[in-house]
């Protein structure tokens, strides 16, 4: 899933300050934590209340879309646009751009920062970054553990000297002031491959990646299946 983090309300209000009628659009797609109709309703109320505190009339309408990363789904918003002068979306960065391209007559603003592709350890638990969408998956060789994402240096031939007692020298931040020691991905890979009796894959030299094919990429219709 694509993991997002809510932008500070003050920042959203500042961005929206010239606008009085705002369509607040959730996304029922893969965005995590969920950013659907319920979250759009909450954010719409917060914006309206903030307006009232300043004696400003702000009119927000919450709604949602099945997924904002597809024009077919986003087309359903057209009937709801009348009377609004801005769109605020709770989607990831993809949704912001899809709405922008579909509805250029209005400006679409992000309510979220898109942070990574991740997984949820338990329901409502911590969410961990798992895939950088690098386009050259080597999970078949690394025991199902991604060094490109989970090694802070994206090493192909790890671990580095910064692996101490199985932990990475780089600490991960949780929120404003909490840090945790991350597992060293290559330490995990070593143990996984050892268990599988495939240490030859650990020892294998992996040559430098081809970094010549970077963004923006396109997958053509014919390549889809």
């Amino acid at each position: 899933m694509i993991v997002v983090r809510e932008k500070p309300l003050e920042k959203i209000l500042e961005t929206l300050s010239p606008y009085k009628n705002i369509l607040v659009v959730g996304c029922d797609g893969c965005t995590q934590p969920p950013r659907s109709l319920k979250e759009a309703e909450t954010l719409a109320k917060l914006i309206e209340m903030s307006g009232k505190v300043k004696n400003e009339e702000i009119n927000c309408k919450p709604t949602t879309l099945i997924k904002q990363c597809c024009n077919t789904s986003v087309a359903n918003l057209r009937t709801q646009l009348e009377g609004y002068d801005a769109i605020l979306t709770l989607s990831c960065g993809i949704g912001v751009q899809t709405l922008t391209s579909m509805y250029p007559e209005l400006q679409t603003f992000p309510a979220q920062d898109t942070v990574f592709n991740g997984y949820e350890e338990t329901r409502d638990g911590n969410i961990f970054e798992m895939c950088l969408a690098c386009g050259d998956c080597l999970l078949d060789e690394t025991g199902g553990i991604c060094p490109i994402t989970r090694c802070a240096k994206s090493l192909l031939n790890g671990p580095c000297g910064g692996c101490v007692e199985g932990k990475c020298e780089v600490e991960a931040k949780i929120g404003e002031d909490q840090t945790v020691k991350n597992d060293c991905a290559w330490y995990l890979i070593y143990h996984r491959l050892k268990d599988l009796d495939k240490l030859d894959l650990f020892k294998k030299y992996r040559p430098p990646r081809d970094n010549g094919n970077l963004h923006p990429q396109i997958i053509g219709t014919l390549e889809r299946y």
Partner: protein
Amino acid sequence: MEAFSNLMKGIATGKFVYSGELEPHNVCTEVTSVIEWAKTLKGIEEILAANVTDNPQSFTAMSSLAASHIVQEASGLELVYQLRTADRNRMALASDILGAAALGLKNILALTGDHTTMGNTPHCMPVFDLDSAHLVDLVHKMVYEGTDLAGNEVAGPRVEINVGVAGNPNQEPMEIEILKMERKAEVGAEFIQTQVVFDLDIALEYLDALEYIKVPTLIGIFPPRSFGQASFFDKYVSGVTVPKDFLDTFAGFKEIEDKAKRKEKIDEFNIDYFVNFVKEIKKKKACAGCHVMAVGYPDVIEPIIAGVEK
């Protein structure tokens, strides 16, 4: 493989060799003190070369290429140009290697380097286009195939540089480290200089485990000048542990109030401890020498080497 540097030539003769370490100051244009230290090391016959660090712990320092050249010219001591992949992509690394060859540098120590968030410029873009094994591959290709990693041919005089890597005997389990070294040997690592080791048993175990790879190894030592320095290694240097007895001895030195007397005792202990340490590692087949990292602590280096070699 060919020996281009005095360090590799020394190793090839089977002589037990020593290398030292030089550290340009953080964010500083001045290298006079580094040159002075290099001259001191040059005065010790057994020391064949010294490393010049590259943004150690990810703190900005003078380009190690510039510093290596300046110090090598001014001191006459052969240098090991440390080069980390943390800050440069493969194109920049290749151009630095070409520059090193043109400037007459004969050794490169290929490092990945600490993560950039650890140092004094934590918001920079970490590069890591290559890792240390890739950098070995790059140098090796330039020397023996005359190309860079993209296959571009090197024009002009041949690149004549020996490439080494950093080892970490403190890595647990040690098998991780040994397999890594085997991997680096396969792509052309010609010598290993290790992270600091204080625990003799670890050093001996490492040398035994490493023997089959047949890459000459220089074990890193660092005689500490104070309890603070010893405990700093124990607490803050990734993967380094200092044996409790060693730390307790240094804690005892803290009690000596007279500074000169304290220094005398510390020097005495360091010389005694490390002479024995180096004598023991020297018995191992894989051990080609010792990398002495006592920057700015000349008083013990000469006596340690003399104690081992007499």
